[in-house]
């Protein structure tokens, strides 16, 4: 798979249209890597001139910041900004709503000012510009429910881009009782992904999986690698992995377009 880096681009004296910010999950987590690859396939199909930072990319610092470590966050932020500004990056696209939120909202006052888009927003733009079409035959009729990632939804009020893409797949989009503004968290945010939950009577991801299963879905769609992990675990816990799959919207588009 051809994934050019900013360093390659610079060596050739080129400036890509977008920087694809892969994020830690998209780079290292086996499940999330598939999302990164699906998104790259879409970029190739739409002939988007893109690059990644590769080994020069480092944690945005989101998890450190939410865990209370502002020092570590700002060290990460300033290092990343130095790299990004060094490459004169203007536009960033990411599949990770946490990176999206941090790059978009928390980097500007530290000197990192970029146009930042979630991949669902960017793909929506590609379609609007006539650069990409979604085949609405291959997934037709499937029951899909969309789990709003907190850092895309409430945090940045992006509710429609992912839904617009899902509708274009020709599927039957069924909303959970808690959706958009009132969507329930998957349980991973605020650095919870990296620790055990406090004592309680249930795991958050199980409760959210129950919300999703109420819609009797074939597919639970997400737009966040961490939500993906939490919902996948929830489906396993409920022993539904034979009938329900969890997919990122990028994966669904790649599948629909047979990429």
């Amino acid at each position, binding site marked *: 798979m051809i994934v050019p880096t900013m360093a390659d681009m610079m060596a050739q004296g080129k400036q890509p249209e977008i920087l694809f910010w892969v994020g830690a999950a998209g780079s290292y987590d086996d499940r999330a890597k598939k999302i990164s690859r699906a998104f790259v396939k879409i970029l190739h199909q739409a002939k988007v001139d893109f690059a990644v930072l590769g080994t020069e990319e480092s944690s945005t610092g989101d998890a450190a910041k939410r865990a209370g470590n502002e020092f570590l966050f700002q060290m990460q932020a300033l290092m990343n900004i130095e790299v990004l500004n060094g490459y004169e990056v203007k536009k960033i696209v990411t599949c990770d709503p946490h990176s999206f939120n941090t790059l978009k909202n928390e980097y500007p006052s530290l000197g990192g000012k970029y146009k930042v888009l979630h991949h669902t927003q960017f793909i929506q733009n590609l379609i609007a510009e006539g650069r990409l079409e979604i085949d609405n035959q291959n997934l037709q009729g499937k029951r899909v429910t969309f789990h709003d990632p907190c850092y895309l939804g*409430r945090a940045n009020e992006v509710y429609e881009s992912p839904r617009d893409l899902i509708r274009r797949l020709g599927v039957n989009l069924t909303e959970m009782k808690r959706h958009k503004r009132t969507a329930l968290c998957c349980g991973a945010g605020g650095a919870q992904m990296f620790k*055990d939950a406090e004592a309680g*009577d249930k795991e958050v991801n199980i409760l959210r999986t129950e919300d999703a299963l109420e819609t009797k879905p074939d597919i639970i769609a997400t737009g966040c690698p961490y939500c993906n992990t939490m919902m996948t675990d929830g489906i396993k816990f409920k022993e539904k992995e034979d009938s329900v799959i969890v997919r990122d919207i990028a994966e669904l588009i790649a599948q629909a377009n047979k990429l």
Partner: protein
Amino acid sequence: MQYLPNILFAIALIFGVGFFVLNIRKLSRNIKLGKDVNRTDNKPARLKNMLKIALGQYKMVRRPLSGILHVIVYVGFVIINIEVLEIIVDGLFGTHRVFQGFIGNAFYGFLIGTFEILAALVFITVVIFWTRRNVANIKRFLSAEMKGWPKKDGNLILYFEMVLMTLFIVMNATDVPFQEAGVGNPISQFVAPIFNNFSAESIHLIERTSWWIHILGILVFLNYLYYSKHLHILLAFPNTYFANLNAKGQLNNLDSVTNEVKLMMDPDADPYATPEAGAEEEVPEKFGASEVTDLSWVQLMNAYTCTECGRCTSACPANLTGKKLSPRKIMMDTRDRLEEVGRNIDENKGTFKDDGKQLLNDYITPEELWACTSCNACVEECPVNIDPLSIIMDMRRYLVMEQSAAPQELNAMMSNIENNGAPWQYNQQDRLNWANEE
């Protein structure tokens, strides 16, 4: 002696309003114990928020049942209070229904008639509210933090409103000339027959007594506000005006940290350089918050504004899954501790004397703070734009940056980020391997 009632009324009014003003000054003093934060930008957006959310009850009606019921009480409360103007004029000058002469019988009748209908609606709504709180088993009214005073407080407010509305109707029903005029009594005309067999003196006595208890009740209620969650009727307005306008996902960057990090990363920085004059004071006492005085004045105003409705807690993923965290409790604890600090300052002639307590641990425990997923459901839910998440984050910052007291797994995550730029233990050189793994 002819002017005795006027004098008594004036004294009651002066004491009632005076005591209220004193309490408001105390409230303002306590809020100003918070750290400075600039919320004077973008005035049009702030004004719009206030008009839409506080005045317009925009977020209240997202839950239609409780929202519409609340709108009835809110509109009733605001409009019926126009009548208080007349009561004050009558009380001070010994007049009776002074506006009737000024604005004419028809319009006066229309006004009082409207007030009566609203009073009846408010009464019915308040009874429904009481039932919701005490009989209906609604989960958010039964949480641990609602036991004791908060529950009593909620009920007391409802009793106050029931009594005040009843007195308003009885006062009109026993006003014989008013009933005889027959305008503006759509409700009280049905109450008036109860008093048919009473002597003229008794009816007049009931009318006067109702009138007095009604206005004294209003003055008592006004002063009850400061001691109650009911302060939201005033603070909802500044609270929505000064609320955060940024994207909810944006957590503030600490400037104090930026300075230190920049110094650390600057290869030309001289660590042994003499600090510039005055630089010493700029160094903050601590990072994050362990006490109410470490929070900003907006966060402290948030705490006083909270009316403990519990919509935040009913949407909190941690709370829904049985964890100890309740965003409402975060706000109540902040307010209770701030009140305690305020009383301490009053008792010690204007300075705070260490009482061996603080907001962290004595009120809010680390277990609650670490249960938060930062999902913003509480912030989204709050009908008056209170931000419990910002307090949780500031307190986590204190735990981590001042006490290194993060849960073990988070320490591991953070040292991974520090060492290899990812929350897991992978080599940064492997960061692009995903591209060639299929």
